[in-house]
C-alpha cells in the first residue's frame, strides 16, 4: 500500500510512524507536508502524534485548517482510509471527520506510560482481526479524555464506532484501567463509514521487537490484513 504521513509544524511522531509502516510493515511511505494540497495518490493517510501548532488554542484546532486537510477531508468523504494517532486523532475530531473531542486528562497531568487496550468489537478493519485480549500500547498525552454528548455517545456505541477501550492486563474494562477519564473507557473511534480511524495510544511505539513490545505490530498486521480483504 502507498501511505502518506502528514507532517504539521510540531508533529514529532512522524518518523516513528514512517519507520513502523515502511521498515516494519513493508509499505511504501511518503511524507505529506501540511502546506501541500497534493496527497500524492496515496491509498491511506496517517496523521501522526505530536504537538501541532504547539497545541495552541486547542490540540489540533489550527492544524485542521492546513491546506493538506482540505484534501484529506475530500479523500475521507469519498471513502479514503485515514488513521489519526494521538495528536492526529485530535486533528480528525476538530476537523469533524471523527465524532467527539479530546479534553485535558482528568488528572490534568501529562501521562506517559504503557496501558492496555482491547478491541471494543470486531466491526471495522482496525479491530476485526484482533483477539479479544488486552494489547499493551503506550500513551503519551495531556489531552486524551474522550468526550461526546450523551446523544452522540449512544449513536457511536450502537453503531460500533468505538474501536478500542482502555482495560487492565486481564482485559477488564473499569475505572482503574482508565488513564484519563475518557467516557466509557474509549481509547479510539471510527467514523460512520468505518474508513476514518482515531486512537490515542501509539501502536507505532510498540511495533519493533527491539523495543521489547510488538503488540502494536499485531494491531498493524491485523489492520492491513483486513484491508486486503475489502479490496
Amino acid at each position: 500500500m502507498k501511505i502518506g504521513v502528514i507532517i504539521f509544524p510540531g508533529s514529532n511522531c512522524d518518523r516513528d510512524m514512517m519507520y513502523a509502516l515502511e521498515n516494519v510493515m513493508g509499505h511504501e511511505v511518503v511524507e505529506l507536508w501540511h502546506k501541500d494540497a497534493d496527497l500524492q495518490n496515496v491509498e491511506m493517510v496517517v496523521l501522526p502524534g505530536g504537538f501541532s501548532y504547539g497545541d495552541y488554542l486547542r490540540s489540533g484546532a489550527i492544524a485542521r485548517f492546513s491546506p493538506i486537510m482540505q484534501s484529506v477531508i475530500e479523500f475521507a468523504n469519498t471513502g479514503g482510509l485515514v488513521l489519526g494517532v494521538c495528536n492526529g486523532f485530535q486533528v480528525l475530531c476538530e476537523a469533524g471527520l471523527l465524532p467527539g473531542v479530546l479534553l485535558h486528562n482528568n488528572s490534568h497531568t501529562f501521562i506517559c506510560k504503557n496501558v492496555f487496550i482491547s478491541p471494543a468489537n470486531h466491526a471495522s478493519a482496525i479491530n476485526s482481526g484482533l483477539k479479544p485480549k488486552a494489547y499493551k500500547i503506550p500513551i503519551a498525552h495531556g489531552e486524551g479524555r474522550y468526550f461526546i454528548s450523551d446523544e452522540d455517545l449512544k449513536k457511536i456505541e450502537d453503531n460500533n464506532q468505538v474501536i478500542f477501550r482502555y482495560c487492565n492486563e486481564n482485559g477488564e474494562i473499569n475505572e482503574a484501567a482508565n488513564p484519563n477519564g475518557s467516557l466509557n473507557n474509549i481509547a479510539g473511534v471510527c467514523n460512520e463509514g468505518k474508513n476514518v480511524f482515531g486512537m490515542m495510544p501509539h501502536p507505532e511505539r510498540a511495533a519493533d521487537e527491539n523495543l521489547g513490545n510488538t503488540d502494536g505490530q499485531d494491531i498493524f498486521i491485523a489492520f492491513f490484513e483486513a484491508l486486503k480483504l475489502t479490496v
Partner: protein
Amino acid sequence: MTFRADITIMPHRALLDPQGKAVTKSMGNIGLPGIENVRIGKHIQLDVNAETKEEAEKQVKTACDKLLANPIMEVCEFSISELETA
C-alpha cells in the same frame, strides 16, 4: 471602521474542569475557604474591520464558531465596541 471584540470561552458547565477543581482546593491555602466552583476558561481579544457593528459581530461569531471555540466542550460569548480613533 475598526471594532474590538472581547471574547470569553468557558468549558460547558456540565464538564469536569480539573484545572478549576485544583484551584478551588487551593483557595483554602490562601485563607479563602468560602470560594468554590472555580472554572477556568480563555479570554481572547481581537480587532475586526467592518462597515457596521452588525457586520463586525457576524465576523466574530463566524470566528468563534469555526475556530476559536469547540461547541462540543465550550461556550463562547463576546462583546464588541468601536475602537476610538486618535
